[in-house]
């Protein structure tokens, strides 16, 4: 394996940089996409997610940095084995669905016979088997999106790079798409997908990469990101909670009558708060407040 990354990531992005004129759209972006994990790629419009993904796929040239596959610069042959769903969807509007899926699979080195069998199997699974001979333009947008994902999945990819795979899907389709992605991660494939839907990313992803203005602002597992955020406790007492203001080792974020939100500055201080509170009377609630991803995101990108 040579100088591969430590987390067991076949696919690693290292220092990717791309400029458009004077503007640096992607500025030394580095992160691994671990095998068998879903990595969520989050950031506002123009943060540089799509540009990064296009460089990973070799559609756009990088001005600096590299994409590593198994510790070495990725080759075109290896790229062909990555399933890709571009941000801007598109298929031949006037060709039969099955025919163009087979065509795209053969371009990626698959034998035509095997490609047709795999395409039919996927169409079957998405309930599109009877529409195999229909033209793409006759399908609903949701079904077009399904055909698009089949195009990425057909030659049993070694990795998946999906730009906004959930956009435009209804809740049922979101669930089946999520199930499909997990199916691929469970066979050990690294999956990178971008999304605007933070709740969805929070629920699905093993890892997160947050980008803002062309740079990675924070990355890691959801737990790591939360751990990096402030440690907060909420205390609800029977009487007024104003007394917490005087305690050392904590920062009081908010007090509202019987409820106080505390930020721990010195570890262990929260235990002393609880002792004090019990001494003063009944404690109705004392719990660790886990920051939501949107809060982490707000904080990271602000």
């Amino acid at each position, binding site marked *: *394996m040579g100088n591969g990354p430590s987390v067991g990531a076949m696919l690693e992005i290292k220092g990717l940089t791309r400029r458009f004129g004077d503007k640096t759209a992607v500025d030394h972006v580095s992160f691994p996409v671990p095998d068998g994990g879903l990595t969520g790629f989050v950031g506002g419009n123009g943060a540089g997610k799509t540009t990064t993904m*296009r460089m990973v*796929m*070799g*559609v*756009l*040239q990088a001005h600096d940095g590299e994409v590593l*596959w*198994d510790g070495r*610069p990725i*080759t*075109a*042959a*290896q*790229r*062909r*084995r*990555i399933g*890709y769903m*571009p941000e*801007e*969807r*598109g*298929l*031949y*509007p006037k*060709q039969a669905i099955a025919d163009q899926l087979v*065509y*795209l699979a*053969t*371009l*990626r*080195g*698959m034998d035509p016979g*095997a490609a047709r069998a795999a395409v039919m199997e996927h169409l079957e699974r998405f309930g599109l088997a009877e529409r195999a001979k229909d033209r793409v333009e006759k399908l609903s947008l949701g079904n077009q999106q399904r055909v698009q994902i089949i*195009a990425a999945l057909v*030659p*049993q990819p*070694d990795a998946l790079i999906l730009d906004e795979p959930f956009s435009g899907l209804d809740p049922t389709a979101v669930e089946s798409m999520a199930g499909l992605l997990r199916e691929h991660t469970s066979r050990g494939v690294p999956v990178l997908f971008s999304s605007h839907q933070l709740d969805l990313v929070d629920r699905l992803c093993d890892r997160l990469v947050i980008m803002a203005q062309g740079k990675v602002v924070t990355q890691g597992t959801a737990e790591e990101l939360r751990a990096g955020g402030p440690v907060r406790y909420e205390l609800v007492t029977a009487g007024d909670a104003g007394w917490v203001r005087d305690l050392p080792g904590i920062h009081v974020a908010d007090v509202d009558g019987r409820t106080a939100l505390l930020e721990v500055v010195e570890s262990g201080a929260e235990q002393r708060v609880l002792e004090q509170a019990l001494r003063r009377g009944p404690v109705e609630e004392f719990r660790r407040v886990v920051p939501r991803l949107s809060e982490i995101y707000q904080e990271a990108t602000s």
Partner: protein
Amino acid sequence: MSTHTNETTGAEATTRHTADPGHGTEAQQSRAATRGAWLQVARREVLVKLTDKGFLISTVVTVLLIGAVLAIQGFMQNRTSTFDVVTTDSTAAAMVDRIADRAPDIDDKVAVKAGTEADAAAARVAVQDEKADAWLQRTDSGWTLVTKDTADSDLSTVVSTVVRETALADNASKAGTTMAALQAGTTVTAQQLDGNAERSGLVTALGFIFAILFYLASIMFGMTLASSVVEEKQSRIVEMIAAAIPLRQLLAGKIIGNTVLAFGQMALYVGVGLVGMSFTDYGKYVAGLSGSIGWFLAFFLVGFVALACLWAVAGALASRTEDIQSTSMPITMLMMLMYFGALFLDGTARAIGSFIPPVSSILMPMRVLAGEVSWWEPALALLLLVAFAVGLILVSERIYRRALLQTGGKLSVKDAWRTQE
């Protein structure tokens, strides 16, 4: 472990972990993996077109048209027209009988049938009512052929020839001499050093047909190529293709696919034309034309490929189908120039033009057909055209590659050349 990069789905997954450093450079590997991709692209281009009803119908209609034109030509050449000529007196009747006898010798497509009418009025009515084609009448100064409207030129020729012969013979015997003596030394025989008049006419006609075929095929398949390029760009499927294969392979496949289609269609038309022609009076020239037609097809092939690159660029510069009209303007201008150059250039200009690509792809085959050149001239012109095509392919490939992934509106050639990949 230095040669193969076979892509079998299962095996790849296991071998990729053990890829050794002696596996060849990245570039070698990529080239090996995608070497045959153009074939897939070309195959799709051909299949899509061959299953397109519009294309099939227009091809069949054209073949039928060629057949029909040649059949009509053959029919017209062999048809004999019979004319009813009426008279009102015995002198005229005798003349018409003589005309009827002599007609096949003068023009084998004219037959004359004699008829009589009671008087001038009846004869006039017969012609007016189209019961008779003409009324031949003796007048003081000679003869009059009365017809409803313009007399058929073949009939007039036959009638006037026989009348003149008869009158001359009469006048000769009155003067105490003979027709032969009077006519001695008056004949002019036309002699053409190269071929004959009929062949010259055929060659000129075929030259124009070559020019038109090249022009039409280039425009038609060029437009098809440009719109299929922009279809890929507009529908954004090109990004998925670009992730799978080098764009150079995509361009090669599209050009090869369309060239195969255009060349196949052209060969079909030329073949049907030649077979059809062999059934007409021109049949005897078919064998002699095969060399010229071979050159025509060779120039067509190279010229078409060169222009196809330009069409692909026109497609890549556009960002919507509607833009093709304006991005392809320079090519349509060039094609018009080539076409009219072929029709109107003459003498030295024609000789020079037949070596200058891409005009040479039309002009040189026309000159070969006309028998104006020695063997090395088309060979040299073809070589120059090939060199031109290669240069054009290299330039076009760069512009195509750079323009194809730029989706923000119509591009200029300069912008596309300078833009970064």
